[in-house]
């Protein structure tokens, strides 16, 4: 426990907790709209931003926010047009993003260790200034996702109905795209671009095994994200493992535990309440 007396570990823990809360709050909308892996794609694009930042000697995170936002908006425009070629356009963007990132990082003077920090996260090197950025953006994402829940739920659940309700569907979709880019870039420091989607998606997948409604799923997913972040950093500090990977492994472990407990609970309940005779549907046609 004494490790957490060091300021860099405290920053790591606080940063991880903020991302643990914010990522599932956004991720639930992405899962609902069947874009669970979009975070991964935006992460690939963000890597080009990191490379550009390192090459130009600017803050890699800030350049990554700009590039990832541009990428997310492009993906959203391709999605909204709904053409079958969208799939291929996304593939071009994803792999172009990661190849561009690797190339630009190679051109700059930074070492491969520097690239690794963005690929797999480097929680323990978060500076006080980084933590400030993570806190401001993370809280902004969390608050926006909670405050706009009815509207974002409506858009992700049934986009045409939302349009006929007069909701600003295009603006809300853009908001989700930008929020994805921002979450990816702040989470990049914690879990790395290759593992970001896990924090957005896995807590939601865990929660929805046992929840009945959207609001309860969102609350449970945020709690699970918080737990995975906290316990992951604790495990990493004590077992000297990579923090980002530990956080993701804790999230996946929770998924497994909830899946097993849920199955056991359902089995017990089924045994206690003997299955009632199935009620037949009323006849719709008379057969002669």
């Amino acid at each position, binding site marked *: 426990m004494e490790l957490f007396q060091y300021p860099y570990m405290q920053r790591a823990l606080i940063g991880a907790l903020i991302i643990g809360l914010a990522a599932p709050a956004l991720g639930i909308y992405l899962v609902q709209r069947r874009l669970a892996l979009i975070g991964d794609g935006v992460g690939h694009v963000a890597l080009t931003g990191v490379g550009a930042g390192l090459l130009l000697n600017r803050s890699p995170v800030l350049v990554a926010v700009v590039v990832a936002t541009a990428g997310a908006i492009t993906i959203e425009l391709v999605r909204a047009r709904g053409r079958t070629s969208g799939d291929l356009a996304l593939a071009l963007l994803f792999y172009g993003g990661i190849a561009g990132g690797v190339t630009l990082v190679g051109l700059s003077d930074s070492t491969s260790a520097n690239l690794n920090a963005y690929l797999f996260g480097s929680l323990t090197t978060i500076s006080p200034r980084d933590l400030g950025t993570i806190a401001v953006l993370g809280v902004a994402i969390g608050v926006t996702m909670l405050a706009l829940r009815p509207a974002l739920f409506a858009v992700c659940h049934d986009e045409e109905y939302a349009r006929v309700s007069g909701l600003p569907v295009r603006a809300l979709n853009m908001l989700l795209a930008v929020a994805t880019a921002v979450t990816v870039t702040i989470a990049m420091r914690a879990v790395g671009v290759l593992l970001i989607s896990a924090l957005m998606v896995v807590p939601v997948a865990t929660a929805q095994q046992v929840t*009945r409604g959207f609001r309860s799923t969102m609350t449970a997913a945020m709690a699970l994200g918080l737990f995975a972040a906290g316990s992951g950093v604790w495990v990493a500090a004590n077992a000297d493992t990579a923090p980002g990977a530990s956080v993701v492994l804790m999230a996946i472990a929770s998924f497994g535990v909830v899946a097993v407990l849920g199955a056991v609970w359902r089995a017990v309940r089924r045994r206690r309440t003997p299955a009632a005779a199935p009620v037949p549907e009323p006849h719709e046609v008379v057969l002669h």
Partner: protein
Amino acid sequence: MTSPVITVAHGVVGYDGRPVLRDVSLAVTAGEAVAVLGANGSGKSTLIRAVLGLVPLSSGSVTLFERPLRRFRQWHRIGYVPQRLGAGSGVPATVREVVASGRLARRGVLRPPGAADRAAVAAALEAVGLADRARDPVATLSGGQQQRTLIARALAGQPELLVLDEPTAGVDAASQEAFAGALRDFVVGGGTVLLVAHELGPLRPLISRAVVVHEGGICHDGAVPEPAGHHAEPDHDHVHPHGPDEPAGLWSS
């Protein structure tokens, strides 16, 4: 009660250059219950989707509540009931959460729900007979109950006009009755209805006028056509392949 609610003038819609609606004109005034009938592929669903601005007109115009569609902003006056629940997703949502979406048109994006919103949602659930399922995930409901959830969502916004796309297609008899009851209450309360149907079934007594769409044009506008031949038999079950008859194939003589 003759103020125009929907006016379509010379509407033309094409998908990828293939015309689906050609020069369609339609007027619906307040208090009417109009059914748009037609075979599958006749363009009847496209007609109401064009009315709502979900598909663009390539020429002609749509007017809603005496305002051109492009400048129409009072969406709370319209309740839309799509053919089925959007593809949905793995994330569960309760019946109440889906119905509560119907309040957004009235409330706007930023204002949190208040007592009036909750009361309207409860009343809408009551009207379709799903009050006892409000806390259940929509995915666990039968097709008919999901359809009733969608009409409750539209009713929750307390609209003046309901637009329904094949609301009773593939819905069990009990749900059709519950659906017809909710719609009857709406019409009695002075609401206007435009619905697309393949077959009216228990909705028939509510309909004041029928429009028949055939090959992208309107071929009948007036009284509800009587079913003819064996279609008129009370226990006739309306199932047959739609579209042109199968051409004589290899195995038929």
